[in-house]
C-alpha cells in the first residue's frame, strides 16, 4: 500500500474509466438531472456521499458476514438491501436534523437507491480488492477511496454536462433531437475526449 496505488485509483476512476462516460453507470440520473448546474451539483454531492459511505458498509458486510459464512453468492441481494436501508436512514436523519440540507439534496436521495453507480461500485470493490475470498492488504481503505473517486468522477461529468446543456438551451436545434437525443450525442463527444486519458498509466 503506497501513494502510487492511491494515485492510480484516482486517475483511473475519475478520468480513464469515468463512471458515467466509460462505464455507463448512473446514466439515467446523468441525463435526467443535468439540465441545470445547481440541481446537478446537488445530485452529485448526494451521490458522492452515498457512494463513499456505502463502499465502506458493503466492505464490512462482505468481509465479516458473507465470506466467513460462505455466502458470497448472496452478494447482490445483501448489497442492494444494505444500500437501500442506508439511503433511507440518511434521508430520515437529514430530514429531521438538517432541514436546510434536506431542501438542497434530500429529494434526490430516494433516486440514488436505484442508481446503478452505487451498487456498481460496491460490486466492483468486491471484485477488485478481494482475491479468492481473501481481502487484499489495504482493501478497506482502497474501497473507500475508490468510492470517493468514483463520486468525484460523477461530479466532474455532471458539471461539464450541465454547463454544456445550459448553453444548448439557447441554440436552435431540430425538434426531433431536442432534449434526450442531443444529450446523448453530447455525452458521446465528451466520452470521446475522455478517451484521451487512456494512455495514463502508473
Amino acid at each position, binding site marked *: 500500500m503506497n501513494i502510487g496505488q492511491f494515485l492510480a485509483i484516482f486517475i483511473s476512476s475519475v478520468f480513464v474509466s469515468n463512471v458515467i462516460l466509460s462505464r455507463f453507470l448512473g446514466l439515467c440520473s446523468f441525463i435526467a438531472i443535468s439540465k441545470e448546474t445547481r440541481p446537478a451539483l446537488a445530485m452529485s454531492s448526494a451521490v458522492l456521499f452515498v457512494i463513499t459511505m456505502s463502499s465502506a458498509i458493503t466492505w464490512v458486510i462482505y468481509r465479516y458476514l458473507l465470506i466467513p459464512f460462505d455466502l458470497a453468492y448472496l452478494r447482490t*441481494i445483501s448489497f442492494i*438491501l444494505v444500500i437501500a436501508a442506508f439511503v433511507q436512514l440518511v434521508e430520515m436523519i437529514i430530514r429531521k436534523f438538517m432541514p436546510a440540507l434536506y431542501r438542497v439534496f434530500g429529494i434526490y436521495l430516494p433516486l440514488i437507491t*436505484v442508481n*446503478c453507480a452505487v*451498487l456498481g461500485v460496491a460490486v466492483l470493490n468486491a471484485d477488485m480488492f478481494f482475491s479468492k475470498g481473501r481481502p487484499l492488504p489495504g482493501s478497506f481503505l482502497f474501497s473507500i477511496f475508490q468510492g470517493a473517486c468514483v463520486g468525484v468522477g460523477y461530479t466532474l461529468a455532471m458539471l461539464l454536462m450541465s454547463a454544456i446543456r445550459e448553453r444548448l438551451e439557447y441554440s436552435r436545434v431540430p425538434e*426531433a433531437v431536442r432534449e*434526450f437525443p*442531443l444529450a*446523448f*450525442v453530447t455525452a458521446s463527444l465528451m466520452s470521446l475526449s475522455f478517451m484521451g486519458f487512456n494512455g495514463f498509466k502508473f
Partner: protein
Amino acid sequence: MIKLSAEFLKGIIKQNPIFVLALGLCPVLAVSTSVSNALGMGAAATFVLVGSNGIISLIKNVVPDKIRIPCFIIVIATFVTIAELVMKAYSPALNRALGIYVPLIVVNCIVLGRAEAFASRRPLLDSLADGLGMGAGFTLGLMLISSIREISGSGKLLGYALLPGFQPALMMALPPGALLVIGVMLGFFNLLKGRKE
C-alpha cells in the same frame, strides 16, 4: 388469448423499453459491443423480467403497500442471483464479458418499473406475457444497437467478417460509439413519432 398476445406485443414496438420508454440504458450501452454479448444480456434480463413479474403478481395481495418496493427488490434480486449463478456455471466466458452488468440488472429500471406499473396490479398470465414482451423488446433493441456497433466498429457480425475491404471505425466499439448510436436512434424514433402525429 388475444388479450395475452396484445400484452406481449406492446413491449416489442409500441412500448419498447429502450427506444420508447428509454429505460434501463446503462446495460444497453455497456454490453452492446458485440451481438453475442447482447444476446446473453437480453436472455438474462428476459428471465428476470418474466420470473419477477410472475412472482410479484402472485404475492401482490399479501404484501403491505408501504413496504412493497423493498419486497419487489428482494424478488428481483433473487432472480438476478439465479441468472448470475447459471451463467457462471454454464457460460463462464459470457459471464466474464458481461462482468458487473449482470448483478446490475437488479437496479435496472425496466424490471422494477414493470413490477410497480404492471405486475403489482394485474393477474398472473397477463404479467407473464408483459414480462416476456418487455424482455423480447429489450433483447431486440439491444441486438439492433449491438449489430450496428459490431458491424461499424469491427466489420464483423457474430464474429464473421462481413464486408471485405471495409475499414472499421474503432470508435464505434468504444464507449463514445454507444452513446452516439443511442442518441441518433432516439432522435430517429422521435422523428417517426412526430411524423405519425
